[in-house]
C-alpha cells in the first residue's frame, strides 16, 4: 500500500479535565476524500486545529508522508503542505480576492499583474469561478469560501482540510463545491472534509472516519455503508431518523407582518417590503442563506430592533415600536429564542436559576408565608398571629426591591425535570452546560410562559442528534397547543419534514411561501439563490391572509 499522506497516532488534547480528543489514530491516503463525521463537541475541529498548527497536541505524533512532523504553528503546517479552510473565514474585507490569496508567509514578491494571472491559473485548473479583482466585501459567502480554498491551494497545500464548508451554501453551490473537490482529488490532493450532513458524506467522500465524544470510533468505506449505520456510529445507539408532523389546525392568523422594512446594524436594508402571516397551530419555516435578514426579522418582531416601515400585528393589534416590556404588558405572550443563545437569550456566567427569572424578575414580590394559627392558643396570641399574617399579606402586595430566588429555583427545577436537562445543580452557570442543555434551559424558560407566538432562530444549531429531535418534539407540542411557530432553519431536509409552510428569503426579499409537502429541495435552493421568484411570478401579493385580523382602514397604506 502506498505511503499515506497524513497519519495521526495516539493524538490527545485536554482542556482542563475535559478530553477534547483521546488517543486518536487517523490515516489519510494520497488522493482521497476523507469525511470526518461526528456530532457537535465530538472533537472534529479540535483535531483539525492540531493538524493545522493552531493547537499543539498533548500526546501523540503526526506523520506527514511517513516523516514525523511537529506542527506548532500554522507556518509549520504550510511547510508540510497542509492547509485549512476554517468555518469562519479569515479574509481581509477591503482587499481583492487576489490580494487576499497572495497575502501570507513566504510571499514571492507579489506583483499585482502576475498575482491576478496566478490566481486565474489555479481557478481554471480546478474549475473555480473567481474574479481576482473583486473585493471581499462585495462577495457572497460562497465566493468568499472559494477565495479561502484558492488561498490554500496557492500556498501549495497538498492536504486540504475543509471545516463544515457546506453549512453556508445553497444546494446548488454545494454541488459546485463538490465538483471542484473531485477535480482536486483527480489532481492528487488529499482532502479532509468535516460535515454533519450525512447525505453529503455519502455523495462526496471515499472513506468516513467517525468521532464520538473525543474518541475515534472507526473508519469505513463510503461505498459499503449507509446513512443509518453512520448515524449509529456517531450517536452510539439506534436513532429514529424521522420527524413527526402533526396535522396543522387552520386557525386564524396570529401574527401578521405587512410591508416590513428593517435596517441592519450597518444601516443597509436587511428586510425589504416583507409580508407574511403565521396562523395558530402551524410551524412556518424561514429558509434562506445565512445572513439574509433572518436575525433582523426576528429582532424586529420581538421589539428589539427599530421598524423602519410597515406593520406587525398580533391578532389585529399593532405592536410596532413597542419595547419587549410593553408588548408583555399588553398581555401578548410572545417568545423569542435568539440564534446567539449565550449572547442574547441567556446570561452565560449566571446560574440556571438566575436565567429562569430573566423575564419575570421585575414582578417578584415579597413571599412571606402565613403562620398557621393553632386553635388551642390563647386569644391574645391568636390575635397577634392573625395580625402578623395580615401584615405579611399586606407586605406581599408592596413593590419589592429584592429578587425572589426561591421562586426562580422552583421554576428551574421544574424545567430541569420536564426537559431532562443535565446539570450539576440549579446554581451552575449556564455556560458550563453543554450546547443541548443550554438550548433546553432557554426553550424551557420560554415555553413556561405558554406563548402563543414562538419565534425560534436556528434552535438546533450546535446540538447533537438526540437533542435536536427532542427540540423538534417540543416545537410540535407547542404547535399542537395552538401556538404559532416561526422556525428559522438552515437544514432544508429538516424544514421539509417539520414545517407546514416554508417562506424563502433572499437578501431580505420574499421569494415565496410554499407548502412543505408540495415543494422540493431543488425548488427551495433556486429560491434561496434568488433564481426563482414565486412572489413575482404569480403576479399577486403573497403573504396576506384572506381572513386577516387587521381591521379595514387601520392599515391605509396597504389598502391604497
Amino acid at each position, binding site marked *: 500500500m502506498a505511503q499515506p499522506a497524513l497519519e495521526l497516532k495516539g493524538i490527545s488534547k485536554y482542556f*482542563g479535565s475535559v478530553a477534547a480528543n483521546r488517543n486518536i489514530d487517523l490515516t489519510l491516503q494520497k488522493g482521497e476524500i476523507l469525511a470526518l463525521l461526528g456530532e457537535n463537541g465530538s472533537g472534529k475541529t479540535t483535531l483539525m486545529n492540531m493538524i493545522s498548527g493552531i493547537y*499543539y497536541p*498533548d500526546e501523540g505524533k503526526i506523520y506527514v508522508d511517513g516523516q514525523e512532523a511537529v506542527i506548532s504553528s500554522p507556518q509549520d503546517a504550510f511547510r508540510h503542505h497542509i492547509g485549512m479552510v476554517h468555518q469562519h473565514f479569515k479574509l481581509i474585507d477591503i482587499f481583492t480576492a487576489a490580494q487576499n490569496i497572495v497575502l501570507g508567509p513566504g510571499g514571492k514578491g507579489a506583483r499585482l499583474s502576475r498575482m491576478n494571472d496566478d490566481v486565474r491559473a489555479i481557478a481554471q485548473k480546478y474549475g473555480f469561478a473567481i474574479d481576482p479583482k473583486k473585493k471581499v466585501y462585495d462577495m457572497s459567502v460562497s465566493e468568499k469560501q472559494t477565495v479561502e480554498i484558492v488561498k490554500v491551494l496557492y500556498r501549495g497545500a497538498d492536504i486540504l482540510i475543509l471545516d463544515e464548508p457546506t453549512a453556508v451554501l445553497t444546494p446548488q453551490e454545494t454541488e459546485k463545491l463538490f465538483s471542484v473537490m473531485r477535480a482536486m482529488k483527480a489532481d492528487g490532493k488529499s482532502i479532509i472534509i468535516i460535515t454533519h450532513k450525512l447525505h453529503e458524506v455519502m455523495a462526496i467522500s471515499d472513506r468516513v472516519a467517525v468521532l464520538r465524544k473525543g474518541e475515534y470510533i472507526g473508519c469505513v468505506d463510503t461505498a459499503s455503508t449507509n446513512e443509518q449505520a453512520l448515524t449509529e456510529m456517531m450517536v452510539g445507539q439506534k436513532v429514529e431518523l424521522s420527524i413527526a408532523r402533526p396535522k396543522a389546525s387552520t386557525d386564524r392568523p396570529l401574527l401578521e407582518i405587512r410591508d416590513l422594512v428593517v435596517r441592519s446594524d450597518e444601516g443597509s436594508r436587511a428586510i425589504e417590503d416583507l409580508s407574511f402571516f403565521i396562523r395558530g397551530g402551524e410551524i412556518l419555516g424561514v429558509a434562506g442563506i445565512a445572513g439574509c435578514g433572518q436575525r433582523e426579522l426576528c429582532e424586529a418582531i420581538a421589539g428589539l430592533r427599530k421598524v423602519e416601515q410597515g406593520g406587525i400585528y398580533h391578532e389585529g393589534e399593532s405592536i410596532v415600536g413597542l419595547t*419587549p416590556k410593553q408588548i408583555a404588558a399588553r398581555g401578548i405572550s410572545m417568545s423569542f429564542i435568539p440564534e446567539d443563545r449565550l449572547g442574547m*437569550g441567556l446570561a452565560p456566567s449566571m446560574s440556571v436559576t438566575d436565567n429562569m427569572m430573566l423575564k419575570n424578575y*421585575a414582578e417578584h414580590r415579597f413571599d412571606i408565608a402565613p403562620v398557621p394559627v393553632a386553635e388551642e392558643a390563647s386569644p391574645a396570641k391568636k390575635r397577634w398571629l392573625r395580625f402578623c399574617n395580615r401584615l405579611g399579606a399586606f407586605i406581599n402586595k408592596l413593590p419589592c*426591591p*429584592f429578587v425572589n*430566588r426561591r421562586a426562580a429555583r422552583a421554576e428551574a427545577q421544574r424545567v430541569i425535570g420536564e426537559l431532562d436537562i443535565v446539570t450539576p445543580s440549579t446554581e451552575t452557570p449556564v455556560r458550563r452546560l453543554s450546547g443541548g442543555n443550554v438550548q433546553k434551559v432557554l426553550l424551557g424558560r420560554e415555553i413556561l410562559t405558554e406563548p402563543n407566538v414562538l419565534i425560534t432562530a436556528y434552535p438546533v444549531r450546535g446540538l447533537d442528534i438526540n437533542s435536536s429531535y427532542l427540540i423538534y418534539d417540543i416545537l410540535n407540542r407547542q404547535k399542537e397547543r395552538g401556538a404559532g411557530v416561526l422556525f428559522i432553519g438552515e437544514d432544508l431536509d429538516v424544514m421539509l419534514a417539520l414545517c407546514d409552510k416554508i417562506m424563502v428569503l433572499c437578501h431580505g426579499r420574499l421569494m415565496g411561501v410554499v407548502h412543505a409537502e408540495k415543494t422540493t429541495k431543488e425548488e427551495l435552493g433556486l429560491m434561496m439563490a434568488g433564481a426563482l421568484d414565486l412572489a413575482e411570478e404569480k403576479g399577486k401579493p403573497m403573504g396576506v391572509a384572506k381572513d386577516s385580523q387587521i381591521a379595514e382602514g387601520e392599515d391605509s397604506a396597504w389598502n391604497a
Partner: protein
Amino acid sequence: MERVKQPLIHITKRAPMPLWKALCIRAGAVLLALIVCAIFISASAPKQKGFFGYFGSLFTGVFGTERRFLLFLQDTALLLCVALALVVAFRMKFWNLGGNGQVLMGCLACAMCMYYLGGKWADGWVCLLMFFASVAAGALWAVIPAVFKAFFNTNESLFTLMMNYVALNLVAFFITHWYPTGTGAMPPLEDANLPTFGSGVAGRVLPVVLVAVIVTAAIYCYLRFSKHGYEISLIGDSKNTARYAGINVKKVVIRTLVLSGALCGLVGFLLVGSINHMVSTTMDDNMGFTGIMVAWMGKFDPLIMTGVAFFIIFLSRGMGQVCTDFGFTSEALSDIVVGLIYFFFIGCEFFIVYKVHFNFRPRAARAQPAFEMNGESAHKAAEGESPSKDGTQNEPAMSEAAPLIAEDAATMSEGAKTADVPSMSEGNPEAEPPPRTRRAKNGGNKEGK
C-alpha cells in the same frame, strides 16, 4: 534523521481546582513574596536588623501601638468604601477609573460648606449640608461620564480618568483662591467638624469604621439580593441579553454610576468633615486606583474585598515602619516591595488556572513523553497513589532534567529576579513537586495505555 524540534514550554488549562488548594497556592505566594522582600530588604538596608527583624517591623508598624492600629482600621475602612463604590460599576463592566476624582470632589464640596458656612450656621445644619453636598458632588463627577457612555457610547475608562485631573485642579484652584499667601496648604478649619465618639484618635476612627461596616453590608445585599443588583450583573454579563429581557440599559448605567460616585463622595465627606478638617490635592491618597486592585483581587465580592483591603493596608502601613526601622529615607522602597508582593499574589492566579509542561528531551530519553509540572501530581503522590512501577527506567533523563526545571519554574514565575532562585522554588507550590513524584505519574500514564 533531523532532530524533531518541540516547543519547550507547553501550557494547558487545568481542571477546576478545589478551593482549599487554590487558597494554599495563594497563601504560598504571599509567604514567598514576603521572604523575597525580606531578603531584598536585609541585603540592601543601611541599618541591619537581621532577617527576622523585617517581619517584626512589619507587624509593629500595624499593631505596635493603639494609635497605629486605629489608623490601620481607618485607612482600611476608607479604602474599602472606595473599592465598594467602584465594584458596583465594575460588576456592570463599566470601568470607573475616576475614584480619585470623585473622592476629591466630595472633599471639595465638604470643605466649601465648612469654609463658607462654618460659624455662620449652626454646626448641625452645616454638617447635614456637608453630607448632601459631598455625596452629590461625587455622584455628579461619576454621572457625567455615565451619561456620555449611555447616549454616545464614549469610552468610560478614559473619560473617568480625565475627570480625575479636572477635580484635582479644581481643588488646587480653591485652595489658592482661599489662601492666596502662605505655603499653599490649607490650615484645618475649626467650625462645623463632625461629632466624634469620645476624644482622641479612637473617637475619630470609630464613626469611619462604622460607616464602612454599614456600607459593606448594604452593598453586599444590594449586589446579591436586589433587583438592581440582578440588573447590574445581567448588563455586565451580556448587554444584549439585558436588552432582550427588556431592561433599559441606559437608565441602569446612569443609576448605578450615581450610586458609585455617591459612595466616593461619602468617603470625601468623611476625609474632610471627620478626619482632616481641610482639603489638599493629595487627600484621595490614590484610593481610586488602589480600590481597583481591591475590587479585582477580591473577585468583585464585597466579603473577599474586605479581606483584601485589610491585607493591602497592612502591607503599606507595615512597610512604612520597615523603612523607618531599616533606615531607608525614601518611600520608594516601600512601593517597590508592595509592588513585588502584588506581583506574586496576582501572578499565582496563572498557576491556579494553567498547568505548565516542560519538554526536555535529552537524547538518551527520546521516547519518553513530556512530563508535567504541577501540584496535582505531588498531591496525588502524597495521598498514597501507587508509586511508579517502571520508575528506574527513566532515571538518567529525569535526574538530568530536574535542576533545569526548578530553575525554569522560578524564572517563569518571578521574571527578572534571578538572584533569589533557590529560595523561590522552595516556597512556590507550583515549582515544588520533587522529581520522584512527577515520574510516578508518568509511569502511571504509560501503564494505562
